[in-house]
């Protein structure tokens, strides 16, 4: 694949390095001369100096033949411009954008940039995982489909302890495909009885999340 990466900071650099290793054709567009020098010294002539939001630069970079454009600059407005121009002006089907302000995710989606990576959200998710105060951890959210994969730990005093799964009144749009007990995975069935400290992984509609939270006695 021919992949254009807009932004030669740390994210762009390591992304390029990995993609080159996977034998893709890669070009980084970066404004800053110093960063360009470092990239070309380390990775070879795969960097072009210029403003990636400038259509003339995009054209010189061969945007119209790119299979994928990835915008990873530190400014959301630049990343949005790059993805929109790539799509609307150069007909690129697939674009991925880094997002700095998590609130911009739905704006990007409204504007047709469907693949976004929010660094802030990733760190927040990690905090959720590390700090048990938020007992429902989001592993993956498919917003368009209205479904999320969540994980919760069953508290020691939870009302669900000692009852079989089928007796818990789990909503119809919610499935529990995995229980992790003492570090080992169990594929549960209707007769499986939950214990305190079990990690429960559930696939649920976004509306049923709060129900699940209450059910498990998680705060």
């Amino acid at each position, binding site marked *: 694949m021919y992949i254009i990466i807009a932004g030669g900071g740390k994210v762009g650099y390591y992304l390029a390095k990995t993609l080159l290793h996977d034998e893709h054709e890669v070009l980084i567009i970066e404004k800053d001369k110093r960063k360009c020098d470092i990239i070309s010294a380390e990775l070879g002539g795969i960097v072009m100096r210029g403003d990636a939001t400038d*259509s003339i630069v995009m054209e010189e970079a061969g945007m119209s033949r790119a299979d994928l454009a990835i915008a990873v600059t530190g400014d959301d*407005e630049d990343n949005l411009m790059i993805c*929109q121009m790539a799509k609307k*002006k150069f007909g690129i089907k697939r674009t991925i954008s880094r997002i700095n*302000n998590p*609130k911009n995710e739905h*704006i990007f989606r*409204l*504007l047709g940039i469907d693949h976004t990576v929010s660094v802030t959200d990733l760190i927040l998710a990690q905090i959720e995982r590390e700090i048990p105060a938020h007992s429902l951890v989001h592993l993956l959210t498919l917003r368009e489909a209205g479904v999320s994969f969540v994980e919760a730990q069953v508290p020691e005093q939870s009302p669900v302890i000692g009852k079989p799964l089928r007796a818990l009144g789990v909503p119809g749009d919610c499935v529990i495909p995995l229980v992790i007990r003492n570090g080992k995975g169990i594929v549960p069935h209707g007769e499986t009885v939950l214990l305190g400290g079990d990690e429960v992984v559930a696939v649920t509609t976004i509306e049923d999340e709060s129900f699940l939270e209450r059910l498990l006695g998680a705060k």
Partner: protein
Amino acid sequence: MKVIIVGCGRLGAHLARRLDHEGHDVTVIDRTSESFSRLGNDFQGKMVLGTGIDEDILRRAGIEGADAFIAVSNGDNTNAMAAEIAKLVFQVPRVVARLYDPVREDTYHTLGLMETVCPTIMGSNKIHDLVSGNGKAR
């Protein structure tokens, strides 16, 4: 008319003062507080410190219920994004963005979400007409 202006540079401040004098309800957003000095002492409108591409800042500026939104900061990308938020998230009826780059202007004009103004093309046309002597500056 309730108007939000993003960018308090020469154009933004001039427009803000003009609309304010005409009796409109004007709010200006800028990232630096010093820029607001361009509005002069008699400016009656509101000033909001922050970036025009942040929903929370736009709400604080009263974008909900605004009749017009004008994006004239010094960055094309900021203007385009601010204008898109105004149109798509807040459904402001009249949205105008200044874009210096003619290609970007053409692309966004074609998208049809906003009115676009390209000072580069306008200036070029005017100067061209003046120099080539056909006198009819547009």
